[in-house]
Structures are given as structure tokens and as C-alpha cells.
């Protein structure tokens, strides 16, 4: 298979589709054995039942750990960046091997976020010696989810014995496809709008948005503060890397905050910006912003300018 551009030689993100428990156990056993043999750390995650099943089959070994989805897979963006942090902190030569089933979203929109998670892995984690084998049970997984995972994993299996998947599309193409289920903006009247002409306008704009968010929403105050930190960084980014004026529109619903930040620059921002770990002295605004909110989308409008939508609940 063709490796992803810029990926670490020991990076792979593969798919195991199975229709029996034996198929799952066999595939997982082979993956775990290979991982332990490589000298890497191996993580098997799943629901409590699934972990119990795997532990019976695989036993315990040094460098092999089990993890529960209810702790590791609560929210797609948080899961993605916690893997990234772990990989960034590992010694450079240590491989991390991870296998398990990514949980299903509780509704259409949440499933979309997990679909995008699977795709974003190839952008956010590809720089590391990371091998993932995502297992999906074709008996219980809804067909649209199977369709999405076939589009987000470049290989069947992971490691040297894997084979390429012809249905794979890269993260940028996936994000533009219907499978990504990028949410649409609220159609109701915004709770607040602000126009930011220069850096001096950032502070009053933030205060305006904070008051509006607190007024109209029941989202916790920590969430609101973090959300506005993210909006502040994105708006500052729009002034510095795009062009003024930057217009900010907030929709504060009882349980959901949505904010759109549009600049008047050339509109050439890569929609995947901020997924990779920023290097020394590289801009980190969008990378930070992505981690302060639940979701962040970058689109470049046809009329120029860049539009970033942030959500938090």
C-alpha cells in the first residue's frame, strides 16, 4: 500500500471487519502478539464485557494493558487528542499498538463525529509510531457506519501483514463527503454578533459573547469559559493569518453553543489545520482551540474568507 504522505514508517490505521466472536479473537490475538513482539506498548480497549472476553483469550503480559471505552472513548475530539498527547510523550522509538471497537454515536450527529474521528486519526496521529486495528462486528454495526469505516481506514489489518483498502479516502476528501455529516448552522436568529476590526476589539467582543452565552445557555460555566477561549484564539488567528474584519456570530442554545468566526482573508486555510501537534515555534491557536471545544470545522467560502465553526455542549 502507499503510505500516507508524511506519515511515520511505523504508522498504520487498519480495519478488521468480523462476523463471529472467533474472528474477532483471532484477529486481535495476532495483532497483540505482533505488537508485543515489536517491543511496543499494547492497549486493548472495549466495553467491560468485551474486555473481559479479550482478557480471557489473551491473558496478561508486561506492556499489555486493557482499557474501558467508558473512560477512553467518551467524546471523539478528546479521545483523539489524548492519544496524541500520549504518543507525543512516549520515547521516540516506542511503538503504541491499539485495538478495539470505536463506540457507536448515540444519534445521527454523534455518529458523524465518530466517523470524522476515524478519519482524523490519519492526520492527527500519523506522525507517530502508532498502529491501530479498529474492529467492527458486521452483525451489529449499522450499514452506514460500516460504509464510513471502509472509507476511513487505509488498510485491512495493521502491521506488516496488512493489505490495502481500495475504498479509502484521505481525511481532507472524507471531510468533504456526506459520510462526515458536518453539522449545519442553526437557522434561528443569533444570540450575539460582533465585528472585530483589530486586536483591540477582541476583549470587548469576548465580553459581549460571554454575557450572551451565560444569558441564553445552561451549559456549565467551565465549558462556556473554555469555549470563549477557543473563539478568542480563532478570532485572533483570523486577524493575523486571514484579514479583518472578522465577524463572530454566536448561537447559544440551552444545551449547545455554536459560534461561527469568519475572516476576510484569501480563504486558503487547510480544513485539517490544528489536528497535527504543532512543532516548536509553530502557531498553536487552532490546535489549542480544537481541544477546548467539542468540534471545530474549517471551511473556505466561495466568495473568499475563511469560516470556522465551533461547538460545545
Amino acid at each position: 500500500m502507499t503510505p500516507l504522505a508524511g506519515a511515520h514508517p511505523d504508522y498504520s490505521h487498519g480495519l478488521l471487519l468480523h462476523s463471529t466472536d472467533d474472528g474477532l479473537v483471532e484477529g486481535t490475538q495476532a495483532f497483540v502478539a505482533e505488537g508485543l513482539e515489536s517491543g511496543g506498548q499494547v492497549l486493548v480497549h472495549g466495553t467491560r464485557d468485551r474486555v473481559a472476553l479479550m482478557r480471557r483469550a489473551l491473558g496478561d503480559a508486561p506492556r499489555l494493558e486493557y482499557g474501558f471505552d467508558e473512560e477512553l472513548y467518551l467524546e471523539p475530539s478528546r479521545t483523539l487528542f489524548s492519544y496524541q498527547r500520549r504518543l507525543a510523550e512516549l520515547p521516540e522509538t516506542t511503538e503504541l499498538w491499539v485495538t478495539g471497537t470505536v463506540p457507536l454515536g448515540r444519534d445521527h450527529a454523534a455518529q458523524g463525529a465518530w466517523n470524522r474521528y476515524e478519519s482524523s486519526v490519519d492526520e492527527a496521529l500519523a506522525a507517530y509510531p502508532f498502529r491501530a486495528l479498529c474492529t467492527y462486528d458486521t452483525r451489529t454495526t449499522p450499514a452506514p457506519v460500516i460504509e464510513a469505516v471502509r472509507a476511513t481506514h487505509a488498510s485491512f489489518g495493521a502491521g506488516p501483514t496488512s493489505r490495502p483498502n481500495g475504498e479509502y479516502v484521505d481525511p481532507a476528501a472524507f471531510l468533504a463527503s456526506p459520510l462526515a455529516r458536518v453539522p449545519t448552522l442553526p437557522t434561528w436568529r443569533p444570540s450575539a454578533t460582533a465585528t472585530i476590526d483589530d486586536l483591540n476589539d477582541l476583549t470587548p467582543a469576548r465580553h459581549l459573547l460571554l454575557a450572551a452565552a451565560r444569558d441564553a445557555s445552561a451549559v456549565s460555566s467551565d465549558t462556556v469559559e473554555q469555549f470563549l477561549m477557543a473563539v478568542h484564539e480563532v478570532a485572533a488567528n483570523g486577524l493575523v493569518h486571514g484579514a479583518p474584519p472578522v465577524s463572530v456570530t454566536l448561537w447559544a442554545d440551552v444545551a449547545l453553543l455554536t459560534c461561527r468566526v469568519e475572516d476576510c482573508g484569501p480563504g486558503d486555510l487547510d480544513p485539517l489545520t490544528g489536528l497535527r501537534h504543532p512543532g516548536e515555534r509553530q502557531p498553536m491557536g487552532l490546535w489549542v482551540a480544537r481541544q477546548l471545544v467539542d468540534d471545530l470545522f474549517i471551511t473556505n467560502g466561495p466568495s473568499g474568507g475563511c469560516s470556522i465553526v465551533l461547538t460545545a455542549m
Partner: protein
Amino acid sequence: MAAWVRRGLDVGAKIFYVEREDVSLARSLAALLLDQPDAVDAMASGQIEVVPADQGVHDLAWQERAIEEALHRYPSVRWSADATATWGVMPQGRQAEIERATDEVCRSRPVSVMCQYPARESLDRIGSVSTAHGAGMREELLQTAPLEEAGLAVSGELDISNRDILRSVLLAATTGTPCPLFVLDLSGLYFVDIGGIRTLVGGTEPYRRRGGQVRLRGAQPQVDRLLQLFGVGHEPGLLMEAPG
């Protein structure tokens, strides 16, 4: 300023307010307190006394005498002046001398002094100004106050509008501090941006390069989150204290 005057009235203090004679009506104390009837009364009764800049700020002895006299009639005294009132008529060194003498007065008597500096115009002096003000610095969004141990409490909001001020304050505060430890108490800081964190890191860098350690204490959850994302704990000489 209005809040500081308000607090003074509440505790029955005598309030001296040094004002340039050419101050515009809109920026005068009278305008600031227009919507507070008891403040207007206090101006009429002399509890609030507006002092013309030339008299109030030239003569330290006069200032001390006025405070002494006021303390016979009032339990405490509040004194405020706009530093720009003196810039035209007094050398910088003389002003620094007055600031230091004033700080002494505050330490020995029930006197609270609030000196007003326009942030933009005073940036190059903030360092020396901040060390002469023992009780700390108040900006529109950001306040600093010295701690009992070597260190500074930073509270309010730290962003692009005030990070240059904080950098000067940090540099000045750590310059005179012997190593090894300087504490930054962030428990009252509820907003910071990435540039603000760079300021906390950069403003303490010379101190840390000399071998000092800087400990960040009490960060609120959202501030702590950003400190973690920035990787502040990886900066040499910077320690993040665990919450609680």
C-alpha cells in the same frame, strides 16, 4: 475608580482626589460620581476633596499634613492621583521618590492610595512604577498584588490588551527577588489566552535562567487546561502546582 471611591464612602473614609485643573468635565471625578447622590453630598461636605494637581503633588510635606489632619476626623484616608498630572511639571526621578514615600505612608497609617497610570503611555515605566506600589497594580481587566512570600498574585483577565504591562511587572518583580522560588498565584485569573501564557513564561525567563524556580499556583480549571495544552510544565524552572 468609582468603585474605589464608593468603597471609601462606605467605610467613612476621607477621600482626596488629585485632579489636573485642565481635566475635561467628562473625565472629572464629579462626572464619574454623577449618578451617586451620596457621593455628590460627600463632595459638598468635604468628605471628598478634589485637590488641584499643582498643590497636591508637588509638596510631600503638604500631603502628609493633609493626611494627618484628615485622620483626626475620619477613621481612614483614601488618596488618588493621576500620574500624568505630574509628568509635565516634575522629573521622573522626583516622581519615583514621591511614590516610594507614599508607599511608606500607606504602610504606617490607615491610608489607601490609588495611583492612576495610563497603560499605553506608561509602558516603559510600569516596571519601576509597579515595584514602588507595595499593594499592587490594577488595570481595567488585570490586577496584580505581591504575596507574603516572594511572589505575585495575578487576577482578572490576561489577554492582548494588557500582556505587555504584565510582562514589565513580572520582570520588575522577579529582578529584585533572590532565588530560588517565586510564586505566581493564579487563583483569581479567570481568562488567559495563548499570548498571555507566553507572557507568564517569558516574563519570568530571566529569573529562571538565573536559577530561580517559578511555581504556578491555584489555576482555575479553564486556565489550567490552557497551561497544560501549552506545555508550561515542560518549561525549565516552571512548576505547576497540583490543585488543592
